[in-house]
Every structure is written in structure tokens, then in C-alpha cells.
């Protein structure tokens, strides 16, 4: 892989405005790259799990990329991207490319221009793309649109959290991963998750496996990797790819529209926000129609 070319391609897209994105080609890229999304609350071990998973799955014939998203500061716009600290062992792996990304103005767990960033990686013929979301709470599940497989990482003694997550991100997972399974309470949390999983996942007919792991000593990595392979083969037979493509296009369109409206609000004359709600709404939607 040409790491410098990939890296520069990603920077260009990361910083692209709405107009610059619209000016790039949206010819569909023929790629069989599998997109694996890793999500979960802060501190459950997403980065450590990815470090193990990428090392286990990457081969010269199956190169993979990791996009690790961390939050941008709403105050300064800057960010401190720390996912690398847990991925040190991957740095010298010639078959893995890692990139840290700031969330910028996106606050759904992903970052600006994520569909286009994934396209850059697909055009470089990587076999798998691992997406790490910002540490999320209960409702940030935009990852489901962008990933083929969503893995929700949890840890023992988060029983109450799981209760409250039942209706949100838990329903969106294809694999439920209990990390730090050497801690007390692991059995209990696995039993609770098995109950949730028995009701089925986001794709009809798929029952998310509950996998136990301990990323610090790599226990359970084979079970996780096998669960991913099983999900891939099940999806190949049962998933409606046309529907997935439409959902992805909808997300892409909606993200660009939201950013355009942000831009228009930023550009609006001072005093604009003192007008009536109705007037303001009409003025902005009218500006949207004027845009080329």
C-alpha cells in the first residue's frame, strides 16, 4: 500500500467543504471491502480491541485500515487524538494503516465527510476497514449506516447501563462484545446480553452473538474474529444490499445538507437571529434553494 498517498487523500477529504465534496466524483467504487464498526462507551476498550483485531486479521493478501475518531473541542475546534496510544504494536505492521480523525462539527459518534473518507480507502483496495467511533452514550448509532458489521463493546459491572441502552445502541449491534471479562460480573452481563440478543438484531433473522474477550491478554480474539466471519457469510446470503446502498446515500445527503445549513447560519447577517422563527426558517430555506 502507498501510505503517503492514502494519508494525503484522507487529509484532503477531511478538510473539504460541502462544495468541494460535491465537486468530487461520486462514481460508485467497486469494492468488496468489509466495514467493521466498533462502538461503545468511553473507556470500555475499543482501541485496545481494535489493536488486537487488526493484528489478528491483517495479512499481506488482506490489508486493512483503521479510522479512529475522537471528539473535537466545541470551544477551540481543536482535538487531542489519543487512540494511537493503545495501538502501538500495530505501527510496524506493514499490512495495517491507521488514521486518527477529529469529529469536527459532527456529533453522532462519527466525523465530517466519513462516507467520502471511506471511499478513499476503498479506492486503495484495502480488504477491511475498521471504524472506531467516539466513545458514545445511548443514542449515537449513526455508525449503523456506515458499517457492515457493528460491534458494541461493553464491560462487566455496566449492568445498569445496559438496561438503559436496550432501546438504543444495543439494538443496532451485530455482535455484542464483553471486554475485560476477567472482572467480576462478566457472567451476569453476558447473561443479560444473551437475553437481549435472543430477540434478534437490526437485520431480521440475525441473532447477535455475545462474545467474551480480554483485550489486555488477547483472550477471546479468535472468538471475536470467528463471529465477524460468521456475520459476513450470513449477510452475504440474507442482506438487502440495495437497501443498504440507499441508507448510506441518505446519510451522505443529509450530512451535507446539515453542514450547508450550518454554513448559511454562520454567514447570515447579524440581527438575523432576532427575526421571527418563521421568517428565519423561510429565509434560510430560500437561501438553500439559491445555492448552485
Amino acid at each position, binding site marked *: 500500500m502507498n501510505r*503517503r498517498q492514502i*494519508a494525503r487523500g484522507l487529509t484532503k477529504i477531511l478538510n473539504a467543504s460541502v462544495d468541494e465534496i460535491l465537486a468530487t466524483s461520486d462514481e460508485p467504487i467497486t469494492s468488496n471491502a468489509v466495514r467493521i464498526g466498533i462502538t461503545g462507551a468511553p473507556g470500555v476498550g475499543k482501541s485496545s480491541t481494535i489493536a488486537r483485531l487488526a493484528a489478528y486479521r491483517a495479512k499481506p493478501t488482506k490489508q486493512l485500515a483503521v479510522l479512529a475518531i475522537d471528539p473535537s473541542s466545541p*470551544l477551540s475546534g*481543536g482535538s487531542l487524538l*489519543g487512540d*494511537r496510544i493503545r495501538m*502501538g504494536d500495530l*505501527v510496524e505492521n506493514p499490512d495495517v494503516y491507521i488514521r486518527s480523525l477529529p469529529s469536527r462539527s459532527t456529533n453522532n459518534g462519527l466525523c465530517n465527510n466519513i462516507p467520502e473518507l471511506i471511499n478513499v480507502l476503498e479506492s486503495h483496495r484495502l480488504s477491511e476497514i475498521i471504524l472506531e467511533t467516539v466513545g458514545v452514550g445511548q443514542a449515537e448509532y449513526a455508525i449503523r449506516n456506515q458499517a457492515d458489521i457493528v460491534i458494541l463493546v461493553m464491560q462487566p459491572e455496566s449492568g445498569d447501563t445496559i438496561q438503559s441502552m436496550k432501546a438504543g445502541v444495543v439494538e443496532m449491534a451485530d455482535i455484542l462484545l464483553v471486554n475485560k471479562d476477567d472482572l467480576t460480573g462478566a457472567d451476569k452481563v453476558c447473561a443479560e446480553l444473551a437475553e437481549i440478543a435472543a430477540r434478534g438484531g437490526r437485520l431480521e433473522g440475525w441473532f447477535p452473538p455475545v462474545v467474551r474477550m480480554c483485550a489486555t491478554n488477547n483472550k477471546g480474539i479468535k472468538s471475536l474474529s470467528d463471529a465477524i466471519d460468521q456475520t459476513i457469510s450470513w449477510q452475504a446470503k440474507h442482506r438487502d444490499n440495495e437497501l443498504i446502498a440507499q441508507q448510506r446515500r441518505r446519510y451522505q445527503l443529509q450530512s451535507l445538507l446539515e453542514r450547508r445549513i450550518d454554513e448559511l447560519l454562520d454567514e447570515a447577517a447579524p440581527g438575523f437571529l432576532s427575526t421571527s422563527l418563521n421568517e428565519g426558517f423561510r429565509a434560510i430555506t430560500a437561501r438553500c434553494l439559491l445555492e448552485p
Partner: protein
Amino acid sequence: MLKNKRILVAKPGLDGHDSGAKVIALALRDAGADVIYTGLRKTPDFIARIAIDEDVDAVGLSILSGSHVALLQQTRDSLREMGAEDMVIFVGGTIPPQDVETLKQGGAAAVFTSDMTIEDTIDEVASILK
């Protein structure tokens, strides 16, 4: 001030103190930069690989061990081998005054010592990356 700039803050060599590196990393973030931090005790080769993958605009080396001249040279060599000889490198840490010129001749775009204020440090980074 540093909007959309990507900066790697790295700790090469064997010293085990990173409060300084973290203070600088946070100050760069507060000035609007996207900052990537490597963690402690990394080799120059490791730092150069990350700089390439992350496509950073600059690498900041924080060195308190006294080996700043050699570590700067090794980091530059690794970057050159990977085709990034033009990478901007800053050096900061406990640098004796007589070494500042040596580091600049060795390719450091700027050298930051502990008697400088955070504001001056950030201003100089911003003016070099502008």
C-alpha cells in the same frame, strides 16, 4: 489560529516524563490544532511511521533526557528514508542554551525551552505552519 493543522507530539528515547508534552499538546488543541500524541518511550522510526500515516504538518519532539541532538538526527533520518525529508520538526524540553543553535542547524524549525511561555511557543508554531 491552528485550524485544520495536524501536529504529532512525540516522546522519543528513554525519559519517562511527559507532563511537558501533555501541556503543549493541550495548548495546541486549544489553539485549534488536531494533536496526535504517541505516548512515552518511542523510537525515531516509530515516530516517523506515525507522522507519515497521520499526514501531519509538523512533528514536535519532547526530550528531557539530554539526547536531543542525536534523537533529532535519527528522526530526520527515518523521515528521509520514508520520503518525508521536508517534514517540519520542533524540539522542546530541557535544552541547554549552547545546544539551541546546534539543533537549528540539525534541522529543527524551532526550539522551545522551559523558560518560554506557552503563548510564545504556540505563536511561533503558528507562524511557522502558516
